[in-house]
């Protein structure tokens, strides 16, 4: 089956990050698969970024374009709606996930659709569309290779660009052999890919309704752009008669020309290529070419709330390239499932809790050592560490109002530390007391091997030097006393 466990990517149900990471850390195959995948993408990305001598200028432009779009989102989104409608598209607005699902189902019912083919869409996963449609009698067929692997394997995505990176070839072979009825399949990736191609061809040519996400919505033209590698996107957006695109309201770009920046940074960041194989852009409905019934569902789902917040707004600049998680040393060890959200890694750590209005996923802002690598690589310059710190302070402010804080050793410890730091004499007294207390735990070699409570978290894998007999300031004081004694 899938790599050995069934993760939950619903932030309202997922265990906290610290707990969710444990089984992953103990899974050598998973850790190897994740590290391997990341190393491959990173090597390609780094080579092309070095080659692109105007990389920093592109980042500056990409960041500015996205920031400007967000600052004027109301104007740009209305522009998009008007142009898209004029070109023959139908535009809908969904305040939340439930409404988006209802709107999509209503469209499907009107078209008498009992089956849909899908292009991979994080947004559709965010609104949990597939289980809802299945429960409503609509069969959903994912068409991205990774999504088929996950759908047939009853597994969940662990990365936003390479969702099945935690699955290796023999695991894929086993899934395809069983679910496609192809027991003779080898585990050669070429053979597996060919099997997927055959399996999907029939679907592409027969299912009349498709659902997609969008990489970019172009305000000035009403156009929608999809960036892909496999060609299943082109199949889904060309062959069926009906197309439904669900897109977050933040996906806007002001003008068609802005793609000259975004496509350059996206391809290099996401897959380490100068340009991905296929990028498609369409505007409303084109007679004689592609779907004649086109619908765009614009999804809010907390984005307008995030937009209103000074520090957090930059979260919405994200173009879903996954460079942050590819560079993250935490993600490298845990993979995506530990984040308990379809948005994992650094971007997930800031986006998920905000989508949950800080009622869930409060452990995610702490799932970071604040190393800053994500900010370094982000093509739109989202200062992820800055947002992480802001969200941490919101989590603490929640804690300040909760009675349980008095029994949380970290909370209590930090409040006491603040008191101790407020006066040098208090700090010094605490140091002296600490020195005495530490003696109990300090072994003959001068090191501490085991501590209780929160300290045990340190000593489970590391020793700690025992407190020295003299603090620096005590040394300084006695040296000064000696010198003035000598002088006098």
């Amino acid at each position: 089956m899938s790599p050995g466990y069934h993760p939950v990517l619903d932030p309202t149900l997922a265990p906290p990050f610290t707990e969710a990471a444990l089984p992953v850390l103990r899974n050598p195959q998973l850790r190897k698969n994740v590290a391997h995948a990341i190393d491959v993408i990173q090597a390609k990305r780094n080579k092309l970024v070095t080659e692109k001598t105007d990389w920093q200028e592109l980042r500056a432009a990409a960041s500015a374009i996205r920031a400007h779009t967000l600052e004027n989102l109301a104007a740009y989104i209305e522009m998009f709606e008007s142009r898209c409608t004029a070109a023959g598209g139908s535009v809908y607005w969904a305040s939340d996930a439930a409404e988006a699902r209802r709107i999509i189902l209503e469209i499907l019912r009107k078209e008498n659709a009992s089956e849909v083919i899908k292009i991979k869409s994080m947004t559709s996963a965010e609104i949990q569309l597939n289980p809802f449609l299945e429960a409503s009698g609509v069969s959903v067929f994912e068409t991205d290779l990774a999504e088929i692997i996950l759908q047939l394997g009853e597994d969940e995505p662990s990365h936003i660009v390479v969702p099945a990176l935690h699955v290796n070839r023999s695991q894929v072979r086993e899934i395809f052999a069983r679910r496609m009825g192809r027991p003779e399949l080898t585990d050669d990736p070429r053979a597996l890919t060919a099997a997927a191609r055959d399996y999907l061809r029939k679907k592409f040519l027969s299912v009349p309704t498709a659902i997609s996400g969008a990489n970019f919505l172009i305000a000035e033209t009403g156009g929608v752009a999809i960036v892909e590698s496999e060609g299943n996107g082109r199949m889904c957006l060309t062959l069926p008669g009906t197309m439904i695109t669900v897109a977050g309201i933040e996906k806007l770009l002001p003008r068609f020309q802005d793609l000259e920046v975004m496509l350059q940074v996206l391809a290099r960041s996401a897959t380490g290529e100068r340009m991905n194989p296929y990028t498609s852009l369409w505007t409303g409905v084109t007679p004689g070419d592609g779907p004649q019934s086109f619908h765009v569902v614009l999804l809010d789902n907390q984005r307008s709330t995030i937009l209103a917040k000074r520090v957090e707004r930059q979260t919405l600049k994200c173009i879903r390239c996954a460079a942050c998680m590819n560079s993250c040393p935490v993600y490298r060890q845990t993979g995506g499932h530990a984040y308990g959200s379809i948005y994992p890694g650094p971007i997930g750590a800031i986006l998920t809790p905000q989508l949950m209005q800080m009622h869930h996923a409060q452990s995610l802002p702490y799932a970071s050592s604040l190393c800053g690598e994500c900010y370094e690589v982000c093509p739109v310059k989202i200062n992820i560490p800055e947002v992480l710190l802001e969200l941490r302070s919101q989590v603490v402010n929640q804690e300040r109002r909760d009675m349980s804080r008095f029994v949380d050793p970290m909370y209590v410890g930090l409040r006491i530390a603040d008191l101790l730091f407020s006066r040098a004499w208090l700090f010094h007294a605490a140091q002296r007391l600490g020195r005495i207390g530490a003696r109990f735990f300090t072994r003959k070699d001068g090191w501490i091997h085991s501590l209780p409570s929160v300290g045990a978290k340190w000593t489970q894998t590391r020793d700690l030097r025992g407190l020295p007999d003299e603090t620096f300031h005590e040394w300084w004081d006695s040296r000064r006393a000696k010198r003035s004694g000598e002088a006098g």
Partner: protein
Amino acid sequence: MRASLFITCYNDTLFPETGRAVVNLLERLGVDLEFNPKQTCCGQMHANSGFRSEAFSQAKRLVQLYRDAESVVIPSSSCVAMVRDQYPALFEELGNEALRREFAALLPRIYELSEFLVDKLKVDDVGAYFPHRVTYHASCHGLRGIHLGDRPFRLLAKVRGLELAPLPNLDRCCGFGGTFAVKNAEVSSAMLSVKLQDVFSTRAEYCTALDNSCLMHLGGAMHRQYAGMKTIHMAQILASTDSSPAEIAQ
């Protein structure tokens, strides 16, 4: 040249030998060093844990303590990063106009140790002697936070007898991350184990850095594993001479 030393709360308590080395080194270089006895902490631990108002009160204290200092030397890049990266937002949100002015006046006078040596004293040869094979670990705050660049390498290159073994994957985080080391101890340890593979591959006797925070984490595991390598803050290497070799903790 006068300078005021901000030793940092954890160096004061856990790594006084680093402080002694800074004093010996700077005095040897002719710096008239002072030490404000009222100092405690820069507020980083509280800021990074989400306790912003507490962090602000510590930040305010620090800024007021060093109002009259000519320069402030801090042997910890994470604390310098705290002052440069986070103090502006804290003073903006929680401070007043007067405090913001005081902070703005102090900011250019704050130096991490290697910055003070290279930029202010304009030396890279500090007359050090440390005949050992050493690898240098670039802390994230030093590398990406305050952009120390090649300063540490320039200083180490001039240490007589020192054989520098470059660390592979230099830009990868060691996993300390402050309270992260305890709040997410298992992931921190996984990152540590990956980092140690690179550190051990250098076959160095000592792993050095400009932050005792990372070194506490790396060194703690080395000690647990009887690894045959030790950690040492770069101040102690730079202070080391043949007549006065480095103070190395057990």
